[in-house]
């Protein structure tokens, strides 16, 4: 659905190509309908946000304060920066008009007069493509002061970030768009739906989410909700990276494919002579899954509760199943590690990322993420002690839940889950280091 034209030979990012493929027809139809009806379709669709949290899009729109008399802003979160995630890149670079059409429909539905696309600084060419696409759409009257002669006007501008991961957090993103350091705001009171950009009601949606809105308005919320599985509707783009034969992006109905099917059938299984060891299923913040572990419990199927007993390969790739087994679907980034990977070194790599990206506002996160990095780096480069695992866990436990934004959890979960599942490797790391080094062995830190 979303990736229909991605990598299609002859499909170009210009508006002529998009129009030839039926582009902007849905916007033309949408502006003849009532905004409330469009919001209702999105609510009925059950669409959950594709940025990471999986929050229902219709509910998000429903929370917007429409009585304040202040303008409502919409911000496209194109700050794709969760390690392991690379889906929005292809939408932006290859099919920018799909995003612009989805955005304009969403703006019309929510009576938004000004939208911004906050794109990460590392996509300079993507930013230029989007600016060009917006200019083309403006010439065709799909963006601007009088869209398709309806009297409704909405402008879109592209705003570039500058290399800070925290700008993906919606309130940090808003601060950044206001020209400040991207320090996330505390909720309450700063729920974007009420006090967002310039203290006005603001909607922040992920790129992929807004593309889905276009398809929902096309086929209707009810029909869309039948795609995928209950409470996990629609399709989603799964990004697979690391140690598989065929890494890449794959769009599937949510929950209709298991992790095993994805890794073995779609991605061709492990590299020659290797076996899978650990999978991070939803971007590097998601808790790691250990190959061989089993997940048991009860889950809802229709109106009934049924027992489940899954191996890692049986887990359906949807929001609820991954949450049930103690991880998350997050941003859809699946990172695969095979038996060549030492988990202490992999965690050292992840911790270096989070300590670099902590915004520094809350003490537990600023200090804790740095100390976790220092400990894992010391283990690799200097002395590793048997009690380091316990020490790491105690630092991580003191961050999660004690910070303004979810970065606290994002930086703790890798450490907590690596220690819980691969604790023996941490205990035995000083012995591991005494083994002769295999030439050309993998460097992770």
């Amino acid at each position, binding site marked *: 659905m979303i990736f229909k034209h991605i990598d299609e030979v002859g499909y170009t990012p210009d508006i002529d190509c998009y129009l030839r493929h039926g582009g902007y027809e849905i916007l033309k139809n949408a502006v003849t309908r009532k905004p409330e009806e469009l919001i209702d379709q999105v609510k009925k669709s059950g669409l959950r946000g594709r940025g990471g949290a999986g929050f229902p899009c219709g509910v998000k729109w429903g929370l917007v304060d429409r009585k304040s008399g202040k303008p409502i802003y919409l911000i496209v979160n194109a700050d*794709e920066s969760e390690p*392991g995630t690379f889906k929005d890149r292809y939408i932006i670079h290859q099919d920018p008009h799909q995003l612009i059409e989805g955005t304009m429909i969403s703006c019309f539905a929510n009576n938004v007069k000004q939208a911004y696309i906050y794109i990460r600084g590392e996509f300079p060419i993507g930013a230029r493509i989007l600016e060009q696409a917006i200019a083309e759409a403006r010439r065709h009257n799909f963006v601007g002061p009088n869209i398709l002669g309806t009297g409704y006007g909405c402008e879109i501008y592209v705003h570039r970030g500058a290399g800070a991961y925290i700008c993906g957090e919606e309130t940090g993103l808003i601060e950044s768009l206001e020209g400040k350091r991207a320090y996330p705001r505390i909720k309450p009171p700063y729920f974007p739906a009420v006090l967002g950009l310039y203290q006005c009601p603001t909607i922040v949606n992920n790129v992929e989410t807004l593309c889905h809105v276009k398809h929902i308005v096309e086929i209707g919320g009810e029909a869309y909700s039948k795609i995928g599985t209950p409470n996990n509707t629609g399709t989603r783009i799964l*990004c697979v*990276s690391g140690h598989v034969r065929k890494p890449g992006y794959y769009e599937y109905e949510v929950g209709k494919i298991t992790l095993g099917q994805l890794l073995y059938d779609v991605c061709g299984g492990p590299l020659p002579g290797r076996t899978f060891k650990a999978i991070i299923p939803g971007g*590097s913040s998601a808790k790691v899954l250990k190959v061989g572990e089993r997940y048991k419990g009860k889950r809802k199927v229709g109106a009934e509760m049924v027992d489940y007993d899954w191996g890692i390969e049986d887990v359906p790739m949807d929001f609820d199943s991954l949450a049930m087994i103690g991880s998350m679907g997050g941003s859809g980034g699946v990172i695969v590690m095979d038996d060549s990977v030492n988990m202490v070194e992999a965690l050292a*790599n992840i911790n270096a*990322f989070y300590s*670099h990206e902590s*915004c520094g506002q809350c003490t537990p996160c600023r200090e804790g993420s740095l100390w976790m990095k220092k400990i894992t780096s010391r283990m690799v480069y200097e002395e590793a002690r048997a009690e380091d695992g316990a020490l790491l866990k105690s630092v991580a436990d003191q961050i999660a839940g004690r910070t303004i934004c979810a970065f606290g959890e994002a930086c703790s979960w890798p450490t907590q889950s690596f220690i819980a599942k691969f604790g023996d490797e941490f205990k035995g790391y000083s012995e591991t280091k005494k083994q002769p080094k295999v030439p050309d062995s993998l460097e992770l830190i």
Partner: protein
Amino acid sequence: MNLKPETLARIDEVIPHYASKRSATLPLLHLIQEDVGWISKEAIEWVAAKLELQPINVYEVVTFYPMFRQKPIGRRHIKVCRTLSCALMGGYKTCETFEKEFDTKMGEVSPDGEVTVEFVECLASCGTAPVVMIDDELHENVDSAKAKHLCGQIKAEASQRKT
């Protein structure tokens, strides 16, 4: 500040995009860095005056965002992704190759002034790891051999320029 006329035109174009002038801080810093190559103290003061802010308001932004640099870099900027998916596919070796080829250390300008090699965090192209950005352009599946090839291209351009 000695900015190109087109930079000044873009600056005047971008400021009214926002309800508050302060919002134009990041766009202005990007435009200046693209023009001049780095953000000087003079540039910080110039942006502050332009947007009716205190210099500290701009300085704190420059120091927060990794992409803004306060010193000049080599002619080409080589950014190697360091994060997990790229590291799993050999990103550290890729970075080492660039350093060796230009006889330089991470974050420093190479002795010939041609490049600055840096590690950066996730570039969001994990499926084609390891990835490298050279200035604005992304290069995918950059193993050591491809890294050497890219270095060769940069060196060839450099010697062509000199002749």
